[in-house]
Every structure is written in C-alpha cells, then in structure tokens.
C-alpha cells in the first residue's frame, strides 16, 4: 500500500502544476498586472509611475510565462508564473497583494471554517442516515412516497433561501440566536448553532435521497432475505445488517470531503459573517488578489487529491477484500 500511496502522491505533482497553470491563465486573461495595481492603489490620483512601482514591488513587472529577453533557462524561470508558482509546492504561499502573510491568514481562518463544517458534517450524517433508514424501513408506503417528495422539494430549494429564511425565523422572529457574527473559543457556540442547523436542513433532502437509494439497494440483496428468513425483526435487519454493509459507499463519500472541510463554505460564511476560508477566497476574487486566489486553488486541489487518496485507503479498512496495488 505504501508504494500505492507514494505513486498517487507523485501523480499529484503534474495535476497540481496543471491546476496552477490553468488558474494562472484564467486569472491573467482578464487581469493584467496593470489592472491589479490600479485596483490596489485605489481610484484616485493614481499615476503610471505608482502603477509601475507597485508592479515592481510585487514581482509583477516581469513577463507572464516566457521571458524572451532572458538567457537560457531564464526564459522560463524569470517569469511571473515560475516565480509565483514554485514556492507553492513548499507550501510557502507568500504575501497577499495588501502585504499580509497568506499562510498566517489561512492558519487563522481555517478554524472558523472547521467550526461550522465538522458539526455540520457529523450531525448531518447522523440525521440523513436516520431519516433515510426510516424511509427505507417504510418503503413502498405513503411515508416513503411523502418522504421522497419532501426530500426532492427540499433539495430543489436554493441554500440561500434556507439561510435568509432561517435568519428571519430563528433570529428575527423567535429571537433565539444571533443573526450573524462569530467569536473565539466556546463563545462561538451561540453563533454556530444557526448555520449548523440551516446547513443540516439545506442538506437533508439530498442526503436522505442518496442514502435511501443505498439502503434500498442493500435491502434487495440475498443476505437480507436470509436474515429475515431467520425471523429477525426488520429493525435488527436494517441496523444490524443493512447499515453495516451500506457503510462502504457512505464512508467513502464522507472521507472524500473531510479534507475539503478546511476550505469552508462560501455563502454560509458570507451571510453569517464567519471569518473562514470560504469568505477569504471570495474576498480575494473580488479584490483581484491573485496571490490569495492561487494559494486557495492550490490548497483546494491538494486537499482534494488527499481526499481521494484517503477514500481509496478507507476502502481497504471497511472492505477487507479490497487491496491497493
């Protein structure tokens, strides 16, 4: 398995280079370094000299990808792409265009993102599995029919509606929790209750439908019929046999998203004013801060690759028949 992991990690390098190149191209197709300088220097009284000085100080005064005036390998290395990309592979994210250390900001902002994402994932998993099991238990009955209808209806509604509706109902009308905000330590709890509940409600439709399908697939298998034939109660069959075997796709689906929890939720963090990495990325895009956008895309790609690797490994844990070669 070690060889497999090493091989997968080596595969990651070209993928990350490709992602980085794509980000670079997409960003600089619509933003020239002059545009970035003007945006950062403000709209008033900006001289070309100031623009040139800003570019020089931020390393944007070189050619983008090929430096024809350089000699030898300098044609490739003395470029914005090379100089800005290479250190990412050492997780040195450098400085944002406003001068702040990106690594320090990421370390600070990942905790609020995790504070929403982890309870959201765990509670969501529990509720979704429970509801899906119940619907599967009452399959082919009116409960199943209505359960699916409600789930489809819930998954069809925009998450923005849940957020605004939840803030209106729980914070404005019932006045049970703060509308938005965040605080450190345990004081964060009162600010997290609402986004976690809303995240749960917004995801329950999709989760229930997905898990119900998995459970129904398992329920139709021979070993379930055998279990019933032994005279076991339906609850015992479901929880003792079906759930255990259905865990393989559930677990792998969960494991793949675990690394991505660090990246936070763009809309939720914005509406609840939670200073996580989701809002960090959105702010960077709005302010055309290439350094942050590049760092976050790189981090996202890296974490996704790690997530996929963990998923493969988790297969071997939950299903002893699987071997990684």
């Amino acid at each position, binding site marked *: 398995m070690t060889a497999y992991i090493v091989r997968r990690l080596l595969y990651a390098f070209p993928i990350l280079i490709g992602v980085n190149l794509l980000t670079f191209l997409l960003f600089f197709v619509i933003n020239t370094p002059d545009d970035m300088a003007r945006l950062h220097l403000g709209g008033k*009284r900006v001289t070309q*000299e100031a623009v040139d000085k800003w570019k020089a100080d931020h390393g944007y005064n070189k050619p983008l990808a090929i430096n024809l005036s350089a000699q030898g390998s300098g044609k490739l290395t003395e470029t914005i792409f090379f100089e800005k990309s290479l250190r990412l592979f050492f997780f040195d994210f450098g400085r944002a265009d406003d001068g702040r250390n990106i690594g320090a900001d990421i370390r600070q902002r990942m905790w609020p993102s995790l504070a929403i994402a982890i309870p959201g994932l765990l509670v969501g998993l529990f509720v979704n599995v429970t509801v899906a099991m119940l619907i599967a238990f009452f399959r082919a009955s009116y409960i199943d029919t209505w359960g699916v209808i409600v789930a489809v209806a819930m998954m069809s509604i925009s998450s923005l509606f849940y957020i605004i509706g939840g803030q209106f109902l729980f914070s404005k009308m019932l006045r049970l929790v703060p509308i938005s905000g965040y605080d450190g330590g345990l004081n964060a709890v009162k600010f997290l209750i609402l986004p976690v509940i809303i995240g749960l409600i917004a995801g329950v439709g999709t989760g229930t439908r997905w898990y119900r399908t998995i459970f129904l697939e398992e329920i139709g298998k021979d070993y379930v019929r055998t279990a019933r034939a032994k005279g076991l109660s339906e609850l015992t069959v479901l929880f003792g046999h079906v759930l255990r075997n259905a865990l393989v796709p559930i677990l792998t689906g969960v494991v793949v998203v675990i690394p991505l929890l660090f990246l936070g939720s763009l809309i939720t963090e914005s509406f609840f004013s939670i200073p996580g990495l989701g809002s960090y990325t959105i702010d960077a895009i709005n302010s055309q801060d290439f350094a942050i956008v590049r760092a976050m895309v790189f981090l996202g790609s890296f974490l996704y690759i790690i997530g996929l690797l963990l998923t493969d490994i988790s297969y071997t844990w939950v299903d002893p028949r699987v071997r990684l070669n």
Partner: protein
Amino acid sequence: MGRSFYFVVLLYFLSSLSGCSGSSLNNPYPKGDEAKTILYSSFSQRPKHLDPAQSYSSNEITFTGQIYEPPFQYHYLKRPYSLIPLTAEDVPSPLYFDKDGTEITGADPAETVALSVYTIKIKPGIRYQPHPSFARDTEGKFLYHNLSDQALERIDTLSDFPKTGSRELRAEDYVYQIKRLAHPRIHSPIYGFMSEYIVELKDFGTQLREAQKKGAAFLDLRDFPLAGAEVVDQYTYRIKIHGKYPQFLYWLAMPFFAPVPYEVDRFYAQAGLAEKNITLDWYPVGTGPYMLTTNNPNLRMVLERNPNFHGEQYPMEGEPGDRAAGMLEDAGKPLPFIEKVVYSLEKEDIPIWNKFLQGYYDSSGISSDSFDQAVRISETGNTDLTEEMKSKGIRLLTSTAASTYYMGFNMLDPVVGGGHPSARKLRQAIAIAIDQEESISIFQNGRGMAMQGPLPPGIFGFKEGEAGINRRVYDWIDGKPKRLPITAARQLLAEAGYPQGRDEKTGQPLILHFDTTGTGPEAKATFDWLRKQFEKIQVQLVIRNTDYNRFQDKMLKGTAQIFQWGWNADYPDPENFLFLLYGPNAKAGKNGENAANYSNKEFDTLFDRMKNMENGPERQRIIDQMVEVVRRDVPWVSGFHPQRFGLFHAWYGNIKPNLMANNTLKYAKVDPHLRTQQQGQWNKAVWWPLWVGGMLLLLGTLPAIRSYRRKERGISEHSWQRNLQ
C-alpha cells in the same frame, strides 16, 4: 470541538429554557458589556491599509481618522466647513516668495508666487498611545527594536509584547511622515501628486530608491534631508511648496500628514514581525482619542480610548439651529464620550439591518431593500420615518453628499465629442432627454439632487434656487426647476444634423454606445430605462458591458463613448471639483482625473485664475463663468449629488453629518442604560412555535409507529403461521 462543543450547546439551551440567561438570547455581544459606553458598528470590507501614508478609502479613514492626528481638523458643527487647529497651535497663513526669494504678499498675482512656506507650531505635552515600540529598559535602550528569533516565537499579536511605552509628540514626527510619502516600500497614493508641490519630494523619492537598492534593510529617514519639510525646533516644522496652492491646508487635515515617529517605523521594519502580519499597516500608532486594540479584520476591530489622549473639549459654538437641536448640550465637556467602539465584520445588508432593528447596531444606512420599511415619502415629496421606526425612537438624519455622479461624454470621440457646434447640440439634446429626476426617483428612492453644475451643495460656488439652475436644460416654473420639453431636445438634435435620430447626410440611424461595468438585474433595469430616454429623441443606445479592468482600460485610452463616473470631495473647495474638467488633467494620455477628456481654453484659463483665489465675490464670479462654459459645452449630463440617509437609535447622540471631517467619533455619545432596556424589550425569546412544531412532529410520527407495529405484527404472525405449517 467534540464533547465540549455539545456540552456548551446543551448548556446554552438549558440556561435559556430555565430563564437563567441574563441577556437576550440573540445578543451577539458578551455579557457584562451592557453598562459600558460602547458604540457598536459594522464594516463590510476589511480595510486594506491603516498606514497613514497609504490609507485613502473611506472604510480605512473610519479607523485612521480616530487614531492619527494631523495638525488641523474641520470644525464639527460650523458650516461652511472651516479648518481649526488639532495638534497645531493655530492654522498658519503661508509666507509667499517670488522666484528671486523675495517675500511677497498673498494679494500678489498667483503666478508670481514661486514658493509658499507653511510654518506649523504644535502644542506641547501631546503624547502617543502606549505602544511596545516606545518601551525602553532601565538603561534607556529600546526593548523591542532588535527582536531575536527566540523572542519572536512568543509573539503573535501586538498585545503579546509585555511592556509598552510612550513619548511626547515632536515636530520631527510630522516631517518623518512627509518623508514616508516618498518611501519606495510604501505606495502612497498621493506621492505623485504631492511631488508636484512639496519641494524636492520627487528627488527625495529617487534618493530613497537608490539607498534601498544598495540593500538597506531599514531606511532611517532622519538621515535623509528633505528641503520641502524641515524641523525648526522641537515643536515647530516647516513645509515648502512650489507656487501658490491654498488648498494645501486641507491636505494637512488628512491622515496623510499625521505624525509617525521614527521609533514606530524602526520597530515595524523588523522582518520577523511582518511575517506575523504585525505592521504599521495593521497596527496604527497615534496620538488621537482612540487606539486600535483589536485588529482582526477577518472578524472584529475594536477602538478603545487612548489613556494618553491630550484632551479636547466639545465645541462651544455651532451654526444657527444647533443649540435648539441639542447639539450644544455637551459644550465644553471633555472628549471623547465613548470608551470603546466595536466594529464587527458584516458582509451582507440583511443581517446588518435586522441587527439594527434589534438594537445591536447603534446606527444604520438604508439599503434599497429596506427603504420602504424605514422611510415613507409623502405626496409633497417630504421624507419621514415609518411608524415602525418612530415607535422605536429611531431618528433619520439626511445630508447631501459633497459628491457628484454623472454621465460623461468622451470629448475625444468623433461623434459625441469635440467643440464643434453640432456635437455640442447633440450633447445638449441628450442632456434634456435624460430625465434625471425620474432616475433619482426610481433608482435612488428619491435620495439625490439633480445636478445643475459640477459643484455639489456645501462647496463654495454652488448656487441654490433659480440662480443656480442650468438654463440650457431647465426652466424655473412655480418656484422649482422644470426640465425643458422633449421637443426642445428634438429641435437641437435636428440642428446637430440628426433630424428624427438619423444622420441627415447618410440617412443612417444615430447609434451611440454606453460603456459600463454594470451587471445584474438592477443594472439591466437601469440600462432599459436609459435606452428609453434616448428613444425619446429616436437615438439608439447600445450598452457595451465590460468588466472593470477593460472599462478602466478604455477610459485610459480614451476609447469609451458615453460612461458614468463620480467624484467624492477631498476637501471643501471648488477647485477639487472643477479640476475634473481641466484640460491638462485629462484621463486619456495624461492619466488625470478629467475622465471626459474635456479641454476648453476659456475654462482652463479661468480655472488657473480661480484655483489660487480666496473665497469671495471675485472667485464666485469666475466660478459662475466656468459653470456656464461647462453647461454650454455639456461634457457631463444626467448627474446627481447623492443624499445620505442615516438612521440612529434614541440612545445615540451628538450626531451631525459632517462630510469633510473623518475624526467625528470623539463627539458622539451613547446612553447604554436606555440601549440595554430597549434591547431587552425588543428581543424577548419566543419559544412556543418550537413547542408546537415539536408536538406536530410527535403527532406526525404516531401513524409511522402504528404502521411499524402493524408491520412487525404481520411478520411475526406470518412466521407463526409458517411454523405451524
């Protein structure tokens, strides 16, 4: 996380259920702060720069204005806006010298003035806020100017430094900051502009760049003399500027010219601190009434009273009506009144508005979404608060901003630009056709004043009433301006060579292009409305929508045709608006602020005369001429001056809109007892819907339980019968 998280969640609900909670459940602030004079506000974008040499945006000056003290400030209550001393002894009159170095008077022609010299004396005894950069050991050496790697390991924020110090404000600190404007590491937005005025500032910048290229990690600016800014003695410094520029005094009321001591610059220059985001750009150091004690731009920024503040009194006089309005109740009392200001990050309008209604923010603007909930406009056009707002004791304060937003023509464009009479008539026709009053009513909720000329209200030169209307677009009827009929616009269009919207030579329809960055449904509605305005004179308008960068590029190259632009006053002088139409200041090719690239010799000559004059009848006469030239040439149409609507709770006092001053926080006061009482009344938790919902859920499960039992019974009976067989 984990167990403790769920334990706290449980405790939170249990305490709320049992009524143990001391404050409202939706209160976002910590318990125990209720009785303190804390002001609660929000910010939507984290400030990019808090270094006074860089900070220029309004969201940055909100903070820097309270921390840094330039030598002068605007009087809080008096109008028209006037400068008064802040840290200076007085507002000096400059000495003027001709090119031979002979002193001349201000009455001499401005072009004879080669040099203006401002000598500024500051008050003794002013001290900086406590800060580690000033901390010294028993031998008098700075404690934290040479931090080792080991010491840096224990530092994450500024508050991790155990010791702080302070020192008296000196004239050299002001000079040091003026030098910082030219520092190659600092991108001061006014360096280029100020280089044209402050003597040798440009050369000074070159000198610093050379020194930095040699590898100096820290440039001690005291070692680099600057002829344009010199220390005279401990409390006096002198600034020399080229020519005559009376508006320079207004610049001296901005944080750009606030003091920065050498010790602070030296402290923050340590590389290890910058790695931890501890820089002057994020942790400002000043002598003002407040200091930034929490700087987490990702979450919250907190200003607290500076214990070393030199003291200042609330103004003893204002303008007529201030006393009756209660604005002088605190006259002579020591400032500031508020001990702490908490700014919370809020990205969206809806949470801000709801928190304001719950009493958790002390003031709020009014977004278009909440306008109808907050304000009603009577049939006569008067604005008033709705009953809901009045019942909460909320007050509405309005003010017309010293800003001008306009639609401009690119005067370099072959169709709409230029000084040819036909192009001028085309622009005049468009100016009549676009119903700006309707636009303000639809898109600004009536919050604006249609532009009659480039100058907004509150700026010298602006004329109200009939004397101030643009006769080329309006008539004065029944005591108010009335837009000329559309037939007048069509007539002008025909005279311009486009009868019924077609080129009389080619017969082709006239198609104009509007360059914009607007997107989304609101922008689309605006574009549709705009097209209809042009259709009134049978001219087709094509919207050329591009992203911000491409738009800026078009403006810089002068390839846009019609565009929208705006300007907020830097200072209350007509020069700051009329320079937007000054020929040498064109955007295309010259990178200036004249976005329309307007160039008219008559206007430019008048501007050169007007810009250096003192306010008075002669200056007014010249401004009138300039405004008339602009009205005739029409480089701008369809402009307006926005009105700002602010809502304030009953406990928030001493508020008077001041569009120039940025250090007004020290005058404001809050009544925390009234706030706590009102918050309690407005935020009682409502639990019964949850109980009802829970009961309904329980009832809903009953059929499921019955169904489950029936199913289980069915299985066991079936098994029993099978066993029998």
